[in-house]
């Protein structure tokens, strides 16, 4: 919403300057977005008289002018063809920044002649593209006066960001009322317009809605003015419209725009001679078409309100008029319409058709239903003033919706909701200035232009916004506990721990889109149709992700394209199995790409499944879960390398994590060269650590007897899982055997084909006495036996 300062002063008697007005507007909720103050910008430019203009001695196209600036007479070299003695122009001193070029003017010598400033063109002033000559000012322009004043550009344009709840401030008068309530001047009262009809309105008007749909347009008023002569509107009106970015069209159209901006009351003017038969409002028929004033043809549906005559639809009610009945220079009889169109329906029509008009802007916020008739009277008065003619009587079909509402108001509510202490008299005073009527018994009537006021809290808002939110006292929120108890839930703690663990392990935390392309989703198990977006921002972001991996791999690809082929990324975030609550899971997902960095001390090593497995174990440990107690199976989903991946599970259904090298097919899809090791940990499926009664740990039992370490080399078939060997060893004596580790895996010379040698270190920790050689031998024998029984292993010889 834009307006000029002088326009505002039509309604507000004030001495306040633009800065005070702007800061007050922002303070009361009419946030100022921009102030365009040409007077400030053009202040250094003044009116000057060209005393003489002689040909430049060294250049045919240049003139050497003596210029009277009002303070002094200066020599200026000028290239404009219209520079001549006796003219008045716009002068800029050396040192001034020229708005049109952005450059600072310098004192200079042009072809050997000194020049002390510039006579400016419109383009140089940033006023237009005109650059054929310098600006010529009227003869009576006072020499030395600011140029902006002479041209009437000294009217700052204020633009506010209007919130959708304030239809009244879509008119300058509404803004003035708010400012007056806030103490910036006095609201100028409005003299009612009285139109004396000279003939009966020849134009029949009707509302034709089926029962239940009347609210689309409850009232439609119109009047004919005959014998008008349409032409350009007065200069002041044209200037006003231009200042706020509207193009003047003709007096009759400009009047409707003026009243729309001034009173938030959109109107429409028809060439009365082009209306065929009765004019009426109705709902459109499906597929019906109308050629609107913007020159475009719109196809309508049955929820849109149209204005129609015998020929069909001739306008979009509340949104835009039609081309067929528009006024022109030739119009002699004009029909002026003022109606009330339903806000929601008008908003929808504009949205569906993609029309953002000044009329829609106001109707969809809710215009003042009681201003239907005053609006048309004001338009009639101005039409006759500008274009002559005589008015008919007024025809009104239907009746305006009843805007009379009353509310009780307890001023104590202000302190209860805001903490602001404010006297009841001040509160009611503010409401009165905003147009509320105070009735006995602490009740107020709501002005017809304030559909947003629905309940007592709305009244509180009105009072505090005008009184000033700075008067709300900052009040400490009482503490609930001296030392607040911890607030994080188990899953929140898990997420935090997983993130910091992975960062400590060298992975960088990424955040990628929750949506991916359907094709990418398909590579990771796919998503049901219920997870596809109906209106994606682009075709490659149309499915909610079933895994975090596609986003990370796309990121890996972007990094690789930048030359960063090695490294690791992780993301702890949502993935989806369906659209319902509970079908969103939190996964800690990561990838390691390429190889360890090349370094002088060791050969580079490609990332592998064991790094991913280590990341999984670290996440589980950070969540307080002992990873080694879970079962490792070699059955990760299809996006992993089938021979180099696994799952960590608690039972057949409950998968905690997947890990492994990614399938070459996936790498190809993402155009990634090297191996990628990945993991996905489902944080919600991890069992919670058992609740303990206290924080004390079990007593530490350290043995004072010598521990013994024994090494074994088992030859097993290649397919035998190392985990089974370890398990068999552990099973021999869970108390005595403290640690089992595998320190070598060997295949090749000396070991039969199809077999491998596993070197196992076993640490025995006696508790009661030192082990004797024979005891050690006995345990060793049991170990060999157990492993042989479980895996078919033989001791390597």
């Amino acid at each position, binding site marked *: 919403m834009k307006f000029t300062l002088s326009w505002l002063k039509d309604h507000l008697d004030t001495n306040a300057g633009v800065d005070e007005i702007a800061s007050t507007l922002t303070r009361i909720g009419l946030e100022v977005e921009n102030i365009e103050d040409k007077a400030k910008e053009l202040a250094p430019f003044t009116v000057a008289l060209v005393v003489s203009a002689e040909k430049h001695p060294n250049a045919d196209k240049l003139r050497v002018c003596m210029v009277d600036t009002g303070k002094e007479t200066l020599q200026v070299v000028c290239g404009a063809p219209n520079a001549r003695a006796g003219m008045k122009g716009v002068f800029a001193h050396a040192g001034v920044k020229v708005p049109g070029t952005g450059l600072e003017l310098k004192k200079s010598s042009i072809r050997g002649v000194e020049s002390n400033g510039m006579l400016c063109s419109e383009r140089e002033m940033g006023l237009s593209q005109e650059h054929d000559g310098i600006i010529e000012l009227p003869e009576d322009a006072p020499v030395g006066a600011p140029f902006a004043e002479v041209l009437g550009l000294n009217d700052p344009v204020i633009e506010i960001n209007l919130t959708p709840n304030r239809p009244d401030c879509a008119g300058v008068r509404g803004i003035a009322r708010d400012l007056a309530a806030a103490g910036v001047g006095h609201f100028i009262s409005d003299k009612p317009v009285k139109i004396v009809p000279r003939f009966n309105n020849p134009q029949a008007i009707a509302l034709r809605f089926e029962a239940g749909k009347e609210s689309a347009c409850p009232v439609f008023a119109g009047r004919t003015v005959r014998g008008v002569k349409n032409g350009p509107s007065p200069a002041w009106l044209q200037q006003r419209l231009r200042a706020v970015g509207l193009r003047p069209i003709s007096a009759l159209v400009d009047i409707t725009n003026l009243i729309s901006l001034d009173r938030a009351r959109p109107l429409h003017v028809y060439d009365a001679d082009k209306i065929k038969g009765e004019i009426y409002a109705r709902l459109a028929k499906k597929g019906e078409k109308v050629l609107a004033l913007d020159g475009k043809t719109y196809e309508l549906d049955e929820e849109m309100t149209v204005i129609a005559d015998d020929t069909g639809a001739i306008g979009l009610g509340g949104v835009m008029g039609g081309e067929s009945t528009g006024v022109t220079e030739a119009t002699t009889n004009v029909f002026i319409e003022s109606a009330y169109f339903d*806000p929601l329906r008008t908003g929808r029509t504009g949205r569906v058709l993609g029309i953002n008009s000044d009329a829609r802007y106001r109707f969809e916020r809710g215009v003042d239903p009681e201003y239907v008739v005053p609006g048309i009277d004001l338009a009639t008065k101005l039409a006759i003033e500008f274009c002559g003619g005589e008015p008919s009587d007024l025809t009104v079909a239907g009746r305006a919706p009843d805007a009379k509402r009353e509310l009780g108001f307890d001023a104590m509510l202000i302190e209860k909701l805001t903490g602001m202490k404010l006297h009841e008299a001040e509160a009611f005073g503010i409401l009165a200035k905003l147009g509320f009527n105070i009735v006995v018994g602490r009740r107020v009537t709501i002005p017809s232009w304030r559909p947003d006021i629905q309940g007592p809290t709305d009244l509180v808002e009105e009072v505090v916004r005008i009184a000033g939110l700075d008067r709300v006292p900052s009040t400490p929120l009482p503490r609930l506990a001296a030392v607040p108890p911890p607030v994080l839930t188990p899953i929140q703690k898990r997420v935090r721990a997983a993130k910091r663990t992975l960062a400590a392990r060298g992975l960088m935390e990424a955040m990628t889109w929750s949506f991916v392309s359907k094709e990418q989703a398909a590579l990771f198990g796919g998503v049901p149709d219920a997870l596809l977006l109906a209106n994606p921002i682009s075709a490659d972001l149309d499915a909610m992700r079933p895994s975090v991996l596609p986003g990370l791999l796309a990121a890996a690809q972007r990094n690789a394209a930048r030359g960063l082929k090695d490294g690791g990324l992780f993301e702890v975030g949502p993935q989806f199995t369906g659209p319902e609550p509970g079908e969103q899971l939190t996964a800690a997902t990561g990838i390691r790409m390429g190889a360890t960095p090349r370094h002088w001390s060791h050969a580079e090593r490609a990332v592998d499944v064991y790094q991913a497995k280590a990341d999984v174990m670290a996440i589980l440990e950070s969540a307080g879960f002992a990873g080694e107690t879970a079962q490792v199976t070699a059955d990760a989903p299809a996006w992993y390398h089938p021979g180099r991946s696994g799952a960590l599970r608690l039972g057949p259904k409950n998968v905690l994590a997947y890990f492994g090298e990614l399938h070459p097919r996936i790498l190809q899809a993402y155009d990634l060269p090297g191996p990628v090791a990945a993991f996905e940990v489902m944080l919600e499926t991890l069992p919670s650590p058992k609740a303990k009664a206290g924080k004390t740990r079990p007593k530490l039992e350290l043995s004072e007897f010598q521990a013994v370490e024994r090494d074994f080399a088992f030859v097993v078939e290649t397919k035998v899982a190392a985990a089974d060997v370890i398990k068999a060893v552990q099973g021999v004596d869970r108390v005595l055997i403290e640690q089992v580790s595998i320190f070598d895996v060997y295949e090749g010379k000396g070991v039969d084909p199809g077999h491998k040698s596993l070197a196992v270190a076993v640490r025995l920790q006696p508790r009661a006495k030192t082990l004797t050689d024979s005891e050690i031998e006995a345990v060793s024998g049991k170990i060999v036996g157990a492993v042989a029984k479980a895996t078919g292993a033989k001791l390597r010889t």
Partner: protein
Amino acid sequence: MSDLEQLERDVLARVAAAGDEAALEAVRVEALGKKGSISEALKTLGSMSPAERKTKGPLLNGMRDRVTTAIAERKTALAGAALDEKLQTERVDVTLPIRPEPQGRIHPVTQVLDEATAIFADMGFAIAEGPEIEFDEYNFTKLNIPPEHPARQMHDTFYLKPKPDGTRHLLRTHTSPVQVRTMMSQKPPIRIIVPGRVYRMDSDQTHTPMFHQIEGLVIDETSHLGHLKWILEEFCRAFFEVPSVEMRFRPSHFPFTEPSAEVDIRCDRSGGEVKFGQGNDWLEILGCGMVHPKVIEMCNLDPAKYQGFAWGMGLDRLAMLKYGAPDLRAFFDADMRWLKHYGFLALDVPTLAGGLSR
């Protein structure tokens, strides 16, 4: 000079001249070995008269002790020199770079969330979360944005494909549905903050189709706008780690709050970067207000009894403001150079005791 003095002088000279441990050992054998010169001289003591022994004995023993000491000292010196020489050959180039260490980083949004959590947890706020695929009902209707309300259009909502029964889910446009879920499932007093991903159809330098919000909700029987003001002032001061901040509350409009306000913070943008607590510029950082009685009622609480306030702000935006990352899109690009530069170390855990940042 006696013979003995001459002998001692000769032996000591050879000890001093011995160039390595082997030569020194040869000298030792020659002097103190079984047939060594000093050993031989000592043997003569046995054949001496007591009187002669009394004078020669101390002389000979003294000579033996001095030579023994000299050999031990020389031995230590030679061993030290040999070690020095050996260590010299073991010299490496200490200017060579170290073995690569992990380069992990925490994303600035996570860091800023942890910072905000540290502050709000101290004020007694819990962290509530909710699904990102939501129902119309929770994202709009129960927040006083009825169907066809123009405010729904402000949100540029992503919708999922309609289900067979015609209903459709949407991607939440704000974290406020969690307010609804909390009020419907929990009895006041309620103090929560709600961080999370939200989605709007928007994309340019300061808008991305997905971003993070953090909002707060307090519902009880007495909390009012003055408390909200205090919380936000204290939060901003603590979060931006400045001694004081100046804030400006501007009346505004949101369907779910009444009265509503937008909050600006005083800053200085003259130097190209934003500095808080000084300057002549105002920067909008959040929207807030008293929860609309209709919202409280639609969440099955009695608006005559309960009241409270809510606020919401952009988590990514807080990170941008505090740490100076200029382009929101980069937050979601996972460029490892960006993450290394704007990210945080794993052990940079924000605490109130240690300060939110280093």
